[in-house]
C-alpha cells in the first residue's frame, strides 16, 4: 500500500507530466496514439498467431500428402499433389463409423447428464439453506483438488468386480453422479453463477406457488445460458478428447472411441502418418465448430461464474 506522501508525490509528478505533454496533444492526439498502439499489438500478435496455427496447418497438410511425400526432407509445405483419397482410405481401413458412433454416444450421454446434474446440484448449493450445506460444498472443492490418479487403479478393481469393464458404464455413470474431477468443477461453476442471479426472482415464483424443481427449470436455467454453454463445451471437449478412460475401460476394438483409434495407425516400425493425420483432422473439426458456435456465451460464462473470487 502506497503511503500518503508517496501518493501525493505521484500526483505531483502526474500533473507535471500532463502539463509537459500539453503541447504535444494537438499533434499527438489520442486517436493517433491508439492507432499506433493497435499497430504495435498486431505486430506482436500476428507472428505469434501464425506460430500457434502452424502445427495445425501441419496436421492438415500431412493428411493430404501421398504416403511417399510424407517422408521427404526438407518437409513439403504445400502438398503436391493433394491427395484427398487419404480420407476415405483412412476411414474405411478401420470401422471408423463405429468409433465415431461410440465417441458420440459417450460424449452426448455424459454431456446431458453433466449439464442437468451440475445445474441441479449447483442450485442446491446456491439457493437452498440447510444444515451441512457448506460442508458438502467443501467436499466439492476437495474433490476438485484431488488427483484422479489416486482412484485410477482401485476404481478399475471396483468396476471389474461389478462387471462394468468393457462397457461405457464406468465412463458415463460418474458423469451423472458427479464424483470425479470434471463433475465437481462444473458444479462449482454453476453454483458460482447462480449466486449472481437475484433471489427476488425465486421469491416471486414462490409466491406463485412454484416448487424448487420448477424454479430451477423455469427461472434459473433460462437465465443461465452462459454457464450452461460453458459446462457443455468443457464437457464435450473433455470427453471427446478423453484418452485415459477409454484406454483403461474399453478393451474390445468395436467399443473403442475415436481418441483411442488414432493410435492404431501407429505401428511398431511404420506409422501411417498420412492416415493418422486424416483421422486427427476429422477429430478436430467437431470441436472447432462447437467452440465457434458457442464462443459468444463461453467467455461470458466463465467471467460470470466468479472464479475470480468476486
Amino acid at each position: 500500500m502506497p503511503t500518503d506522501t508517496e501518493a501525493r508525490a505521484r500526483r505531483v509528478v502526474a500533473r507535471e507530466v500532463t502539463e509537459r505533454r500539453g503541447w504535444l496533444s494537438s499533434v499527438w492526439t489520442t486517436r493517433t496514439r491508439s492507432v499506433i498502439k493497435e499497430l504495435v499489438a498486431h505486430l506482436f500478435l500476428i507472428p505469434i498467431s501464425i506460430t500457434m496455427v502452424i502445427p495445425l496447418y501441419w496436421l492438415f497438410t500431412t493428411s493430404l500428402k501421398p504416403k511417399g511425400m510424407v517422408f521427404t526432407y526438407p518437409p513439403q509445405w504445400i502438398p503436391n499433389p493433394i491427395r484427398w483419397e487419404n480420407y476415405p482410405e483412412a476411414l474405411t481401413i478401420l470401422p471408423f463409423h463405429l468409433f465415431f458412433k461410440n465417441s458420440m454416444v459417450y460424449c452426448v450421454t455424459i454431456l446431458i447428464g453433466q449439464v442437468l446434474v451440475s445445474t441441479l446440484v449447483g442450485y442446491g448449493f446456491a439457493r437452498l439453506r440447510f444444515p451441512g450445506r457448506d460442508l458438502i460444498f467443501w467436499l466439492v472443492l476437495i474433490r476438485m483438488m484431488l488427483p484422479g490418479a489416486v482412484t485410477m487403479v482401485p476404481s478399475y478393481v471396483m468396476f471389474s468386480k461389478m462387471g462394468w469393464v468393457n462397457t461405457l458404464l464406468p465412463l458415463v455413470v460418474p458423469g451423472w453422479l458427479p464424483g470425479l474431477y470434471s463433475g465437481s468443477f462444473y458444479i462449482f461453476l454453476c453454483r458460482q453463477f447462480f449466486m449472481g442471479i437475484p433471489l427476488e426472482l425465486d421469491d416471486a415464483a414462490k409466491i406463485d406457488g412454484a416448487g424448487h424443481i420448477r424454479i430451477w427449470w423455469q427461472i434459473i436455467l433460462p437465465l443461465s445460458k452462459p454457464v450452461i454453454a460453458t459446462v457443455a463445451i468443457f464437457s464435450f471437449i473433455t470427453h471427446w478428447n478423453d484418452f485415459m478412460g477409454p484406454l483403461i475401460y474399453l478393451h474390445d476394438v468395436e467399443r473403442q472411441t475415436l481418441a483411442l483409434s488414432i493410435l492404431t495407425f501407429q505401428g511398431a516400425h511404420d506409422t501411417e502418418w498420412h492416415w493418422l493425420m486424416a483421422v486427427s483432422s476429422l477429430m478436430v473439426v467437431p470441436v472447432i465448430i462447437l467452440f465457434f458456435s458457442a464462443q459468444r456465451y463461453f467467455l461470458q460464462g466463465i467471467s460470470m461464474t466468479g472464479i475470480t473470487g468476486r
Partner: protein
Amino acid sequence: MSTIATKLLGQRTRRWRETITGYLFTSPFLVGFLWFTAIPMAIAFYLAFTKYNIIKPAEWVGLGNFMRLTQDERLRIALFNTAFYAGISVPLYLVTSFLASLAMNLKIKGIRWYRTIFYLPSVTPAVASAMLWVWIFNPQWGMANSALDLFGIRHQDWLLDPHLAKPCLIFMGLWGLGPTMVIFLAGLQGVPESLYEAAMIDGAGTWGRFWNVTVPIISPVIFFNLIMGIIGSFQIFTTAFVMTAAGAGGSRSYGVGGIQDCLLFYVLYLYQQGFYFHHMGYASAMGWLLLTIILILTIIQFRLQERWVYYEAERRL
C-alpha cells in the same frame, strides 16, 4: 396462542422441508462422491497393504509396498521427471498465459480472431496433438529440424534425446495455454473500471496500474490457476504415454518411459505398474504417495497465499 403455534410449526416444517430438498438436490454429488471417490480411496488404502493382481485374492504384505517405494529406482526417476516438468512448466505457463490474456484483453480490431486462434490448440485432442508433435519432432523428417536449418543449427534428436525430451514436452504444453488464458481473461474483464480511473487520478502510469490494481485484483485467479496447474502437471499422462509409445521407440500399447526413462512420469509409471505388471497393490500405494505429495504442495500454497493473494471482503476459496 394457537396461531403462533401453527406459525412456529409451519416455520419448522418449512425448514425441515428445505433441508430435505437441499439434500435431494445435492444427492447426485453425495452419491457420486461416495461411490467414485470415497469407496475407491478406501479400496486403495486397503490394497496398498496387499499384493494383488485382480485374479488372485489379495495377500496381506503389511508395509511391504511402502518399503518397496523407498527402494524403487524407477520411482525415483519418475518423481524427478515429474518434479522437473512441474517445476518448469507451471511458472512458465502461468506467466505466458497471463501475458497472453493481457494481450487478449486489448480492445483492438480482430481480437476475437486472436482469442480463437490462441484457444484453438487446446481443443485439439491430446492424442492427436501428441502424435502431431511426435511428427514435428521427428529427427529425420520433422519440421522442428527444418526450422533449425533456418538458423544454421545442427539437427537434434528431440524426443529421442534424453536431455531434450522433457523440454520438448514443456514447449508443446505451452501450445495448449488456452484454458488458463481464458480464465485469466475472465478475471481481467472483471476488474472494475472505476479502480483504474481512481488509480489514474492518483497519477499511476500503465505500469503502476498494472502492479497496484490489476495484479492484486486478479491474484485469486492467479492462485486458482497455480493450484490447478500444479495438480494438473503432476498428473501428466496422455502426452507422455503417446509420445513414449510412438516417438521414443516404446512398445505400442504400454508406454515404457522413453529413452533412458527420460519421459517416465509419475502417473505413467503408476499406470504401468497397475495395468501392465498388474501390481495393483503397489500401484495403490503409489497413488497414496502421489496424493500425499500433492496435498503437501497444496497446503503450502494455501499457507503462502495469505502473503500475496488479495481478497475483497472476507470471501475466500
